[in-house]
């Protein structure tokens, strides 16, 4: 089985978010970048398929040279090959178009992407990629098994979960639950050394029309101080929620 894991290069979850150039660009100053957490669950699940079922695992990212340390980290975790599409990842459709070519050229049976990245939160790339390639697609995937050419998938739905079967090729939008957080891999020294020798192929982007462009960023207005209520006067909180906040 040939697996492709899509890796987004995103600010660490604890990053303070700031903007530059008149609030039109994300300010990367002092920001640590990591593998998108939803992709990390997918990468770890792919490692399981590699170790238990002899799958091969490639990773791909759409981004400039600055994203290569993130791809190298994925190689250090155990991926076999990395591909970087040499273009700034603009809107989700642009990224999906780039991945479409990688998927078609590579003949992958299974593509795992995070259900969304934690920077732009579009949540559209895996679904668009499935629509472009014609592969089966399951989003918000929290369980994935493959036997022969059939996958059994569990996905989160509002208020519960749903199990389904689908033939490969399959694209999943994955998240926490694909593996437990405690099973996530941290690259060890041997992995880091080996990753240096693994192939990282840079490919040129294909043309794709951008339909959506972020023209301005803004931060939420600063919040006022908290109103503290005494634990001995809880009725006051009920009054405030009813009369002041008007939410009950």
């Amino acid at each position, binding site marked *: 089985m040939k697996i492709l894991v899509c890796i987004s290069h995103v600010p660490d979850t*604890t990053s303070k978010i700031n903007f530059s150039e008149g609030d039109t660009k994300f300010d990367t100053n002092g920001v640590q970048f990591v593998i998108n957490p939803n992709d990390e669950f997918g990468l770890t699940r792919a490692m399981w398929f590699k170790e238990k079922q002899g799958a091969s695992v490639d990773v791909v990212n759409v981004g400039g040279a600055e994203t290569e340390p993130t791809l190298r980290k994925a190689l250090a975790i155990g991926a076999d090959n990395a591909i970087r599409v040499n273009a700034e990842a603009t809107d989700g459709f642009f990224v999906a178009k780039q991945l479409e070519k990688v998927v078609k050229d590579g003949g992958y049976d299974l593509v795992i992407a995070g259900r969304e990245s934690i920077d732009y939160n579009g949540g559209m790339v895996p679904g668009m990629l499935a629509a472009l390639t014609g592969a089966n697609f399951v989003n918000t995937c929290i369980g994935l098994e493959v036997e022969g050419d059939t996958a059994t998938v569990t996905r989160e739905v509002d208020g519960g979960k749903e199990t389904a079967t689908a033939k490969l090729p399959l694209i999943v939008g994955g998240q926490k639950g694909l593996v437990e957080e405690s099973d996530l891999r941290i690259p060890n020294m041997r992995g880091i050394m080996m990753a240096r020798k693994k192939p990282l192929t840079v490919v040129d982007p294909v043309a794709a029309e951008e339909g959506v462009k972020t023209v301005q960023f803004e931060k939420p207005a600063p919040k006022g101080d908290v109103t503290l209520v005494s634990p001995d006067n809880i009725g006051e909180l009920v009054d405030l929620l009813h009369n002041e906040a008007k939410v009950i």
Partner: protein
Amino acid sequence: MSVLVYTESEGGNFKKAAFEVASYAKEVASMLGTTVTAVSINASNNEELGRYGVDKVLNVSSGNLEQFSAKAYAEVIKQAAEKENATVVVVGSSIDSKFVAPALAVNLNAGYASNVVALPESTAPFKVKRTAFSNKAFGVVEISSDVKLIGLSSNAFGIIENEVSAAVENFEPAVGDENFSVHVTAVDKATDKVSIADAEVVVSGGRGLKGPENWGMIEGLADVLGAATACSKPVSDMGWRPHGEHVGQTGKPVASNLYIAVGISGAIQHLAGINSSKVKVVINNDPEAPFFKAADYGIVGDAFEVVPKLIEKLKEFKANNA
């Protein structure tokens, strides 16, 4: 030209979010000087959409579509959009709507803005505000494609009554077998619980609850408020509560009107998940908990004493305001 809205239903009845997306679509249609058409799949109360400004309902009634299939639903909505010559299509932000929308965007060659929180700032060019960076910021996006697809965040716009008479028209899209290639074999869903996505009020518990055996208190508070229950990341990691209840950057985002956090200190990743909630209340015995900086109202106190008293006071309030 028209604005098309996909009004999600379950068990034959519209979800609350359907009325919200309809209300939003009505405002967008007014901005564009056009009408609203809803596409409704297997719902029985289609006329009700007129109350929220829907002029026409394309009623799709099909046994094949009783079980949700993202690909098939995307095909239905696409055909409805083409039939109506829709220039703007509005969907919600439930898990299923977010499953459908990307395929719909590709099928319609539409630019897609998800997590939209406000009406368009302008319609020419078409600019709309959405959340970004896990609710730590907003981005104004310009959609330049001919057809624009908007995914409206839950509880971002509210429900606005705008009574018109909705004409219901049966619609029979051609949806081939190739759209049903993912076969659902089992569904495990608590039908009696309010889902986090739909909830106007969310009550959430953290490590301060000390163990899963104490969750009755959270459920009791949720019951009296008609709220959904949720939890912090450590709580789901420890298996006290299911992953589906984990709120935060890598869990679920919450955009409720009221979010009550009990025994949650307020890590930055948790706060990112609840930033879109309008009013936040924190109950924690640690006055230094970071959540107090993000909350609107707070009680510094022992959750095991405060929550039962709060339930009692809310019951009194409800009895007096019934």
